[in-house]
């Protein structure tokens, strides 16, 4: 791997940036691997990287049906935070945030982590009580979080409509200062490059169409590029979770829904934090290019079409215009959707399955970008050791049998 630095930047500037070497190889699949990861999103690539780095397992392929990171990894609104209510989630998401904090250095790739803070608004007394309870729980887990008054919020976000006669008055809020954003593509590319450097084969445009088994054990994957034998298979396919599970006759508590986002035309800096309102389902941030990035909710019905419906956007924008009046004068440049894998308790499933050597990692739904490094880290452990790490043990498929659900619907209430 050629190291990226100020010197390589200068050297390549001289040749008009036309001679950068490729960031990863694009090999044809070998006949067999120790581990095959299905799904080349951030989580799959992170898993491959940590398998190589933490567990010395480098005979690994990541098999992706399209291009790297063009699933939800490249479609999300890039919000990162770890302010989850329950201990189980708090520990997992906090592990991920801590990994994010060192990631640019570790992977020698600028993922543009910007810890600009994540603000959640309260619009009524009930919101305020809920946020206070959550902040207390989060702080007991040693994670930063604080309550802000309406006055502090007005000072932090001047474009917010804090008038007492607003349709959605702002009574207060909670802030995680270590929260923020990172560049989503860069996270996928950085993990891909670092995994490749450790010997992982990244195979794009190769769809897994079947899972080979012998008795109760997995033996390989059938793909559009032929059969690839594998000692172990890790499935990290987000919205396509049920499709892959069906291949081994596994039923999942997951349903796939479109989740949408929009960006506006670029404007001068007006917002230097992330603002979310669970009650009216709006969240926005401003990108480095100046665009406002706005997130909407999911369509209520199941879908695998990567497009959402207009009523969802209208609903979100109506509330947004009231909260941030300047938005009414902005034109929206782009709108898109990703297919998110929603679990009944809004928590992921990361662990083993009844099929030996067949591991799953999905159900991150509307909010798994923030979990990318942590998810890869615990999943690599689970695959390498054939048992879950204590951090992902509570997130087994069996929790739906025991009833030990980790209900995080209120983690911030909004989808991201």
């Amino acid at each position, binding site marked *: 791997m050629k190291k990226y630095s100020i010197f390589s930047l200068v050297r390549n500037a001289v040749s008009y940036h036309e001679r950068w070497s490729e960031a990863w190889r694009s090999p044809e699949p070998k006949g067999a691997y120790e581990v095959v990861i299905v799904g080349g999103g951030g989580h799959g690539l992170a898993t491959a990287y940590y398998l190589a780095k933490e567990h010395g397992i480098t005979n690994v392929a990541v098999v992706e049906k399209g291009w790297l990171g063009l699933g939800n990894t490249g479609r999300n609104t890039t919000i990162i935070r770890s302010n989850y209510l329950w201990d189980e989630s708090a520990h997992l998401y906090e592990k991920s945030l801590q990994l994010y904090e060192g990631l640019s250095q570790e992977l020698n790739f600028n993922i543009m982590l910007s810890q600009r803070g994540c603000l959640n608004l309260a619009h009524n007394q009930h919101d305020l009580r809920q946020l206070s309870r959550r902040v207390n729980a989060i702080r007991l887990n040693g994670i930063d979080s604080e309550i802000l008054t309406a006055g502090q919020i007005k000072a932090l976000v001047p474009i917010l409509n804090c008038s007492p006669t607003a349709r959605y008055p702002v009574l207060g809020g909670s802030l995680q200062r270590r929260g923020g954003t990172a560049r989503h593509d860069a996270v996928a590319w950085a993990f891909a490059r670092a995994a490749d450097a450790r010997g992982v084969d990244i195979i794009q445009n190769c769809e897994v169409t079947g899972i080979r088994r012998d008795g109760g054990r997995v033996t390989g994957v059938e793909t559009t590029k032929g059969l690839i034998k594998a000692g172990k298979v890790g499935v990290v396919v987000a919205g396509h979770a049920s499709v892959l599970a069906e291949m081994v006759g596994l039923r999942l508590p997951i349903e796939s829904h479109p989740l949408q986002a929009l960006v506006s035309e670029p404007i001068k800096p007006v917002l230097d934090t992330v603002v979310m309102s669970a009650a009216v389902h709006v969240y926005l941030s401003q990108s480095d290019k100046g665009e406002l990035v706005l997130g909407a909710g999911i369509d209520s019905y199941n879908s*695998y079409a990567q497009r959402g419906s*207009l009523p969802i956007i209208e609903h979100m924008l109506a509330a947004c215009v009231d909260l941030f009046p300047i938005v009414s004068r902005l034109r929206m440049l782009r709108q898109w959707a990703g297919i998110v894998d929603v679990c009944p308790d809004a928590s992921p499933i990361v662990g083993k399955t009844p099929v030996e050597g067949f591991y799953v990692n999905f159900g991150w739904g509307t909010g798994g970008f923030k979990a990318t490094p942590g998810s890869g880290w615990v999943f690599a452990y689970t695959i390498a050791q054939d048992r879950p790490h204590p951090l992902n043990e509570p997130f087994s498929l069996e929790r*739906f049998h025991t009833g030990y659900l980790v209900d995080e619907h209120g983690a911030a209430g909004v989808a991201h």
Partner: protein
Amino acid sequence: MLLIPCPWCGPRDETEFSCGGEGHIPRPADPAALTDPEWADYLFMRKNPKGVHTERWVHSQGCRRWFNVARHTVSHEILAVYKMGEPPPETGADSKQNRT
């Protein structure tokens, strides 16, 4: 935007309806006899097919009645609308992705 043909009111905009999720999930006949995994299957496990999905909808802003819809989850095409209690019609659904 979906145009949903309510069996009682005719075609109306999607925004008048609420989606009730997967249809044809019968309540267990003898709940006390169920094991934990069987309960989990009834309560949580869903088909979530990439293909034809039979689901329940309610015309919340109209006649407020429930009915079944067979809809393709990639094209969103509505292939059939039928009343509660009626069996799902033949829609040419991929049987593998649509087992009951």
